[in-house]
């Protein structure tokens, strides 16, 4: 044995070189992994620093109770409520579309569709989520709104309804793919048991699979909410950019994201209160999505472990 090792081929030096090279490469890989950590830290730091400057001018009480948001006007009001109301309204409309459609598709694909249909429909469905959001915005403004106006003649050209409907459509593939994953994680024997009792596929789906995958479905909806809350271009284009404290989807209103876009389009000097206000708005947005994401991801982990 020892003879074999001392033969040329593996010299000690070459071995040491390889080990050194491995060490160097490993540290490069670690550094790449840390980019993700630094990105998060940088996001939090930037948002906090600029927001702190903002909150030196604006009290937290005003920020959360004032019902007007007009940072760029002479008579400046800094109440985030109108923007939050706009965000919640479009999100609600989006959910009313995405949850029924997404769940139906998920049940169909997971419990009914033959293998070939599932494999060919899924990638096409994913394309709905791949369409650039600015294109969806155009679609909402020039196609969905006129169609809605046909049924509701008094609907204004900018409204949250058409923006919300289109966002809902956009997150359908997202909701359906997470829900389908959850349903397929329900073990086969539970279905077999249900069939053996004489249940049809639909009964099995609704009474065994859906309850069994409940935490996964909840996760899908919550992750969908977080998507809808962060959606920017559709609302910026189709819902108008005027802050408007209302929960009526037929009215135009600005969301948190639309406000950030609106300010960015103008030419605000670095360090002004208007500039800082978009970071404060961003912080609120980040906070809302973070809560939904954390809940959503912990629920997905739950359904993956459950069986």
């Amino acid at each position, binding site marked *: 044995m020892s003879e074999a090792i001392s033969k040329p081929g*593996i010299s000690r030096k070459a071995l040491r070189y*390889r080990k050194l*090279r*491995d060490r160097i*490469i490993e540290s*490069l*890989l*670690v550094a*790449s*992994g*840390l980019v*993700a*950590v630094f*990105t*998060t830290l940088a*996001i939090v730091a*930037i948002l906090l620093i600029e927001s702190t400057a903002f909150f030196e001018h604006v009290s937290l009480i005003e920020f959360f109770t004032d019902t007007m948001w007009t940072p760029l006007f002479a008579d400046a009001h800094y109440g985030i409520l109108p923007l939050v109301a706009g965000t919640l309204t479009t999100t609600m409309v989006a959910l009313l579309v995405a949850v029924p459609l997404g769940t*139906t*598709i998920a*049940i*169909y*694909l997971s419990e*009914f*569709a033959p293998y070939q249909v599932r494999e060919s*429909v899924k*990638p096409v*469905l*994913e394309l*709905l989520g*791949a*369409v*650039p*959001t*600015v*294109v969806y915005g*155009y*679609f909402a*403004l*020039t196609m969905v709104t006129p169609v809605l106006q046909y049924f509701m003649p008094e609907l204004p050209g900018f409204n949250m309804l058409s923006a919300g409907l289109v966002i809902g*459509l956009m997150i*359908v*593939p997202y909701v359906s793919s997470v829900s389908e994953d959850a349903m397929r994680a329900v073990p086969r024997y539970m279905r077999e048991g249900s069939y053996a009792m004489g249940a*049809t*596929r639909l*009964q099995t789906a609704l009474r065994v699979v859906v309850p069994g995958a409940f935490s996964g479905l909840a996760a899908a909806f919550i992750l969908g909410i977080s998507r809808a809350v*962060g*959606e*920017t*271009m559709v609302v910026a*284009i189709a819902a108008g950019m005027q802050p408007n404290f209302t929960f009526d989807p037929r009215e135009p209103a600005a969301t948190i*994201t639309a406000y*950030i*876009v609106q300010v*960015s*389009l103008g030419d605000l000097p670095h360090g002004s209160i208007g500039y800082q206000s978009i970071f404060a708005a*961003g912080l609120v*947005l*980040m906070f809302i*999505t*973070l809560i939904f994401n954390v809940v959503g991801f912990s629920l997905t982990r739950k359904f993956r472990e459950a069986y």
Partner: protein
Amino acid sequence: MSAQVAPYRNVDLLRQGLSRRKMLDQLFVIVGLIVMLACLLVLAVLFIDLIRDGSSRFGWDFFTNFASRRPERAGILAAWVGTSLIMLVTAMCAVPVGVAAAIYLEEYAPKNWFTAIIEINVTNLAGVPSIVYGLLALGLFVYQFDLGQSIAAAGLTLALLILPIVIVATRESIRSVPKAIREAAYGLGATRWEVTKDHVLPYSTGGILTGMILGLSRAIGETAPIITIGALSFIAFLPQSPIQSEFPFISFQWLDEPFTAMPIQMFNWVSRPDPEFQANAAAAGAILLAMTLMMNAVAIWIRYRFRKKINW
């Protein structure tokens, strides 16, 4: 027990219930198909609508003209050049870093708190709204690093945005390489990097490529973050070409220049009241959508081909 069974002693009743349940079952199959087709139909309507509205603008001039105040003379030259250069920066940054991070997490990382922190961060970043990346870029790249409203700033922003996509896709494809292949290489005395480079990576090329293309197709349509860093929508010049006729032949001047991009140009046209500009917006949108769909199709095709080629 017998009390519950009793009604079904009546066979007719049982048959009736059964056929009703079977009918509902069939009904759901139809409903499911209709819902699915409706979603796909929307996609088709969207595409046809864009092409129809923009049909008057398609033509060579549209690609070779700069933006203009006159809608019929306006084109997307600055926009598509800007988008291509931004994608170049994005790919150059996101792919190496993303693949390296994925290799670390799958092949190297021990199971400890440090790894857990990286993993949590990757998952969280995937859920951060894109406009927040824009705010990060505005504060960090534009003002702290003093990159200004340049192609480099936009490319880096989008690279951070798609990093989680690249990482997740690469991890998935690395994970699907069987353990036996690694064990065999280790058995012959290969170091960890040699195993990764010579065995794991070649087998996961398909997945990595798919992730890269999907990431770029997401980046190409992202509008909000580049609006936030302040992309201009009216640019009537091209950035300096990266390839020069004189020594040293390659120039990085373009990284520093202001830019516009396809989605920005489209957004600008959509938000103008003049309906003539809507046609330009539709044409730009159709081209943008065609690019995204094509990239997705290529990704699906690559995934399919590599899956077929490899037999463990």
